[in-house]
């Protein structure tokens, strides 16, 4: 039953806290390993035993549907015992600090901790206090490495490459960990990354991350191979960062007209959950150029690859 993976790639580090610091070879290694899991996930028999005996705890301080469920499925398909910590009803709500939670969980000897937190750097802080591997499932506006990996895998499978592609990332860059991880990953693999957003949603100094920045969708999408839309939180569209939903959609929402600025075979992505009619029109989201559903599928494969690659490096592996 346990077919050994043909790729013997090992992520030679204890934690995956971000894309920053990963080498070109490490990213490609993870993507190649993910490909194997894409095939596996399409079979009836989806189980591996490479994480048998391992304990994986999913610690989500922010609610999440797709990331948490795909990490849970990924762990289970690799044979790990997976526990989801329901933070809303746990001690954290009773005032326990993150560090105390970490120490408590660590005493239960988890091999892998998957964590999401609303504060940038919180996952790194946790990683300093535990013995197992820590995977960042999103920390504040900092990084969301597995999202960037699944996006890259989706792009590579559809375009055959990443190097030389023009990728436009559009929307709320300021608050987006997805944008940061994608910028680092895509530029590392040689893509040209463009950011398109109103100036209030652009972090200062972002152009120093090796990207082109524009405030105009026509300019930003010109000749783009990939158009990646980002979610705009409801509380940010009432005049604090942009004046209204209507105005935002008019200038930055992706509809068929704006998509036509991009290459004919351009593909549309969105990390989800989508605000239909805010940053993306339903016709585009569900249209022939959309990769949004495929991104979700890749999510499970990529998370299996990350779990596997990190577990090969765990003690007694």
């Amino acid at each position, binding site marked *: 039953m346990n077919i050994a993976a043909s790729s013997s790639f090992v992520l030679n580090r204890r934690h995956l806290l971000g894309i*920053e610091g990963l080498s070109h070879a490490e990213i490609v290694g993870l993507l190649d390993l993910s490909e194997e899991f894409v095939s596996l996930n399409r079979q009836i028999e989806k189980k591996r035993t490479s994480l048998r005996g391992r304990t994986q705890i999913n610690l989500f301080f922010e609610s999440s549907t797709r990331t948490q469920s795909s990490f849970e499925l990924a762990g289970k398909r690799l044979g790990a015992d997976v526990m989801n910590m329901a933070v809303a009803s746990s001690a954290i709500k009773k005032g326990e*600090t*993150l*560090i105390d939670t970490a120490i408590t969980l660590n005493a239960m000897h988890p091999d892998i901790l998957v964590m999401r*937190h609303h*504060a*940038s*750097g*919180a996952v*790194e*802080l946790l990683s300093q206090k535990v013995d197992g591997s820590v995977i960042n499932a999103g*920390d*504040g*506006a*900092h*990084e969301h490495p597995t999202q960037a990996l699944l996006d890259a895998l989706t792009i590579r499978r559809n375009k055959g490459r990443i190097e030389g592609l023009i990728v436009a990332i559009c929307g709320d860059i300021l608050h987006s*960990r997805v944008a*940061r991880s994608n910028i680092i990953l895509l530029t590392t693999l040689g893509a040209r990354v463009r950011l398109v957003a109103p100036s209030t949603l652009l*972090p*200062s*100094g*972002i152009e*120093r*991350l090796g990207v082109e920045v524009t405030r105009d969708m026509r300019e930003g999408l010109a000749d783009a191979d990939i158009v990646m839309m980002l979610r705009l939180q409801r509380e940010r569209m009432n005049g604090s960062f942009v004046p209204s939903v209507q105005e935002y959609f008019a200038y930055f929402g992706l509809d068929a007209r704006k998509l036509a600025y991009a290459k004919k075979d351009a593909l549309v992505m969105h990390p989800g959950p989508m605000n239909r009619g805010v940053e993306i029109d339903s016709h585009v989201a569900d249209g022939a150029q959309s990769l949004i559903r495929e991104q979700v599928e890749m999510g499970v494969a990529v998370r299996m690859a990350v779990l596997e690659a990190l577990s090969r490096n765990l003690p007694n592996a």
Partner: protein
Amino acid sequence: MLSDRRPILLANARIIDPSRDLDFAGDLLIAEGVIREGKRGIGAAGVPEGTEQIDCRGRIVAPGLIDMRAFVGEPGAEHRETLASASQAAAAGGVTTIVCQPDTNPPIDDPAIVDFILRRARDTAIVHVHPMAALTKGREGTEMTEIGLLKAAGAVAFTDGAKSVTNAQVMRRALTYARDFDALIVHHTEDPDLIGEGVMNDGELASRLGLSGVPKAAETIMLERDLRLVALTGGRYHAASITCAESIDVLKRAKDRGMAVTASASVNHLTLNENDIGPYRTFFKVAPPLRTNDDREALVEALASGLIDVVMSDHNPQDVETKRLPFAEAAPGAIGLETMLSASLRLVHDGRVDWTRLIDAMSARPAKLLGLPGGTLRPGAPADVIVIDPDIPWVLDPDELKSKCKNTPFDEARLQGRVIRTIVAGRTAYEYASA
């Protein structure tokens, strides 16, 4: 130790007294709590019987330091720092006068609390303590405090501590009223609306770390506003903590016009920059935030030229509960009483600031601004004196810090030079063990 008030002769020292612009080799005699005289060759013959003679060859004798900005925690947060523990830390850092901030609970906004601080300090502290009083009642920024009565009770200046007074009308009236009492207003210049959710300097690094930024304009706009109000009212004004090059330009314009405006910079902003935050190290989270290295360079230059008048520690004890948190959620603040001198000596060793100016910025200047008797080695002045070994290398071990909290950005830093003896009112309050 405290009972020992024998005369002290600090012999063969390099004596630096910025209050009189003196820097000479000689001896300093202290007796009965005051400085008797400082000159070349007092020698053993010229001293009273029973004088403790200390050979200070290769060492520097200077006025005890006056730290113009220290947050202490008494009353209200004694678990973080008391006047007693802060004074121990101060003595170990060569600080003979602490100017504590009104950010206490209750705040120092009433003459009775000024009196409380002074009594507690008299009974428990081993260095001098002078409080700044709140500028507005409850530090709420709406109504001015009893500036006259507070000053009479012993408040040396008026400030809302780490809070800015956002209402320009309140600030205008306070400056106007304070002028009648010749009271100094010290102001933390950070516009809270522009700070927003910001937790570190705005820029590339904050963007990379996914942290909200505090633009320099938050400081510069408030400083500009204040200086317009000073021009309008003629009050005495001191900017509590200047951190960026733009603010220095603003300050310079005001000084060039001859306004009664002065400013401090913290030792943190003079020796550290935003890159030190690295992987979310909360001990480097301070308010205003650490800026770029270019800003730091500009501050150092402004200190050397005297444009920045005062160097202060910005001592702000925070414990594990407030610091061992994700960066955005951690409290700002760093302790500094014990490291202010040693850390700022980096600037002297690098040849950026000379000895006299540095000591001046931490003794004579604040004494003058606050109307305190110390900060000088003039005969007859209180015998607040420190002996510095300028070269001794040491590594900061947080366990050896006297402060109740260990939130120092100089944790395990390599430092060169330190205080080896601190004399407060003629008594030795601290002696470096391995000296």
